[in-house]
């Protein structure tokens, strides 16, 4: 996921001859990377919490909460990634 998203978002910034993306190329890729990193952190935390919850080390409610939060974050991130990829495809299909 990390890789995919970084490519998707930094790829947007790297389109040559696409003036609308040029000025923010640098920002785009670093924002994309930290975004993906943040998402990864959330997923990792959710995973370890879920395991602790299954083992009964922490209340099951805590584990479910963390997993649900991760699920939501992931869904939102995926939606944003799809948007970015779609925008890229839209541009690549454009007749010049």
């Amino acid at each position, binding site marked *: 996921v990390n890789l995919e998203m970084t490519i998707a978002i930094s790829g947007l910034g790297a389109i040559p001859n696409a003036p609308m993306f040029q000025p923010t190329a640098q920002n785009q890729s670093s924002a994309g990377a930290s975004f993906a990193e943040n998402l990864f952190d959330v997923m990792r935390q959710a995973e370890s919490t879920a395991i602790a919850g299954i083992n009964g080390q922490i209340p099951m409610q*805590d584990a479910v*909460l963390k997993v*649900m*939060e991760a699920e939501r974050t992931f*869904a939102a991130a995926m*939606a*944003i990634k799809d948007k970015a990829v779609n925008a890229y495809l839209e541009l690549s299909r454009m007749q010049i």
Partner: protein
Amino acid sequence: MDPLRFSGEIAFSALQAQSLRMKAVAQNIANAESTGNTPGADPYRRKTVMFQSELERLGIGGGQVKTEVQDDLSAFRLEYNPSHKAADAKGYVKMPNVNMVVEMADMRQSLRSYDANLQVIRQGRSMANGLIELLKSNG
């Protein structure tokens, strides 16, 4: 913090609080007949869970529920049973101050509250999902 996520956290804290209450009920019912071991000793004392709103920890709006386990200080039941180990000089044994009807009512109430909070979580989730769906649709 995102209010929807926040409401989820509050509801989850309530789920935990109700679980704790359920635990107290289980403890009370299991020990409804637990007496002391020495003559005239106090038997098991009924546990109750006190709920408090926690306003400080999460900043503005707070509202998670905090729990505290307390002893029920009401009087013990006396039962005449001279042969019992915990019987006093007159032959009376102190029995726990657990009332089965009260425990059943408490259990039912805890279930209802748990369900209500689950519903809050479900609703918040569907609201958040609706928002994400909006992001997915084209045009």
